[in-house]
């Protein structure tokens, strides 16, 4: 067994963890999330570039929360999600063990959030060049061209909400699209309803999105709505010098400092 499999098996056999969440081989050369409770299952855990689904999404699910202490095989985006969720008081430290695998393949076990926070803070969210280029292209468009670009892309959406379901930050038990007194966002998947949905979702992720790409990977129609969240991250970089999920720092969009350079709120 390799290092993370051995750690996972050890945590289960000692009873330190009740369940390990990770990835195993799935269908058609894909990987799938797995929920192991027996140490002998750990040898089928896999971790490679196919593991793009963000499995931090399961940590806030009621079905999983009741399982006891959870160990999770975590890529860097999963680790970032855990810190972001913790900073939003959605996870309790004593119920999670993080078996982190860094981008260089180093396995690091984190038993508390402080150590994980320190590791996550030492990294930076970088938007991949191919997305930066696409965003630049869209930004260079005239207003009409940009409107048509998004109209064309977003009108395909049939509102299966796979983007929302795949996102660890979309943990609200009642989403804005489900509010119907009044109905804020139109339910039908017509162009207007789709615009409102995707813009609302992007806005709710401002300063929170960890750029894991799970939403876009989940979309069965390949709609590039992740350009919206990626653009915001680039904008934060320009305006605030970037951000990283953190337990110590301030959440950019929900914090206020008296010496803020903008004075409209004073």
């Amino acid at each position, binding site marked *: 067994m390799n290092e993370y499999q051995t750690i996972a098996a050890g945590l289960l056999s000692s009873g330190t963890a009740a369940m390990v969440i990770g990835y195993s081989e799935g*269908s*058609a050369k894909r990987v*799938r999330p*797995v929920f192991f409770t027996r140490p002998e299952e750990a040898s089928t855990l896999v971790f490679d570039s196919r593991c793009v689904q963000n499995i931090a999404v399961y940590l806030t699910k009621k079905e999983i929360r009741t399982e006891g202490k959870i160990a999770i095989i975590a890529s860097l985006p999963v680790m970032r999600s855990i810190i972001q969720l913790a900073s939003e008081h959605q996870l309790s430290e004593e119920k999670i063990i993080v078996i982190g695998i860094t981008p260089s393949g180093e396995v690091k076990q984190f038993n508390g959030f402080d150590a994980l926070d320190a590791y996550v803070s030492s990294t930076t969210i970088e938007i991949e060049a191919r997305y930066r280029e696409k965003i630049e292209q869209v930004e260079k468009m005239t207003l009409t061209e940009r409107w048509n670009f998004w109209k064309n892309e977003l009108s395909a959406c049939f509102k299966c909400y*796979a983007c929302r379901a795949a996102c660890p930050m979309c943990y609200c038990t009642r989403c804005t699209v489900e509010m119907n007194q009044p109905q804020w966002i*139109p339910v039908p998947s017509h162009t207007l309803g789709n615009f409102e949905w995707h813009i609302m979702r992007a806005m709710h992720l401002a300063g929170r999105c960890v750029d894991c790409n799970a939403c876009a990977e989940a979309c069965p129609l390949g709609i590039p709505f992740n350009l919206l969240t990626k653009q915001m991250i680039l904008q934060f970089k320009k305006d605030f010098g970037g951000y990283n999920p953190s337990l110590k720092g301030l959440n950019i969009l929900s914090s206020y400092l008296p010496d803020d350079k903008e004075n409209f709120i004073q």
Partner: protein
Amino acid sequence: MIESYLLQSSSLTKLFNKLIETRHIYAPVKKGMVTSFNRVESLEEVAKDYIQTTISAKSILFLRNEILFHYKQENGDVKIMEPDLQRIPELVIWGCRPCDAKSFKSLHSVFNWDYKDIIYSSREARSAIISFSCNQADEYCFCTSAGSGPGHTEGSDILLTKLKSGDYLAEILTEKGQLIRDMIPAIFETPSSESKEDNLARIPIVFDTAGLKQKLEQAWNSELWITQSMRCLGCGACAFVCPSCSCFDIQDEKHGKEGVRSRCWDSCGFSLFTRHTSGHNPRETQAERWRQRIMHKFSYLPDQQGFTGCTGCGRCSRACPADMNIREHLAALINDSTSPENRVA
């Protein structure tokens, strides 16, 4: 009533061009990684190599967002303006797979159950389905276990099977199919002796639906509902790409004194689908919602309409962001021994 003809490969364009003179044609179009049914103007636009479209042909007859009527408040009264069904054009669904064609049977049954839905029925009455047999399949396909098959004829008006020569075997299956043949009779020639079966994809049978139904009747308390659905994210991707899922939601959109009432696709996988106004949800967990999806397709619908609500197209498995593989899960349910009912037996 099956009449077989040979359609030369060059005649395919002639058939298409004849049809487009008087009808709207919807066919698979590839954009990026996604192939879906769009209205096309020429045969060149139609995708060539696709095992299955991402979205099913259902989307042409059962719109994802259908305006049922407009309404207007006027002088203390409400005026209802129903859609003009006469304006629905004659349609051809070109290039759908036999599994999609068969699933229209399921949609027809739902939209004609206790109430004849005139919008769906009008569109259905004006549609002709020209399907293409499958000469390739992938590991998600399981039509042969779900009462369909790569050359299954049910639901199609004309079924075309590509032969090794590049020509097509054309099976005229219905009166609508005959009407199309009569529009351009010269291209329908005497068939060659080449067998249809030799030109179809081989798709192994993994279970039989009757056995599955019997097993499901004992499986209400199976632990598999929980273990299989643990990774389910609760989105609607499976239902929205499915050719036979027919659940919908009714929505009113009002602007001032007028508005529209629409029928929108919905999914039993959403927790909101069954949530009551009180907040109580009779299907509280994803496991219960997963059970409903499987039971509805393979137990309840066979009881109500005599056939399954699944034709084995495999789209739900391909689309699932968490790799829920329906073929694999059904096979596991057939061999399940975890439900108390089965243990007693």
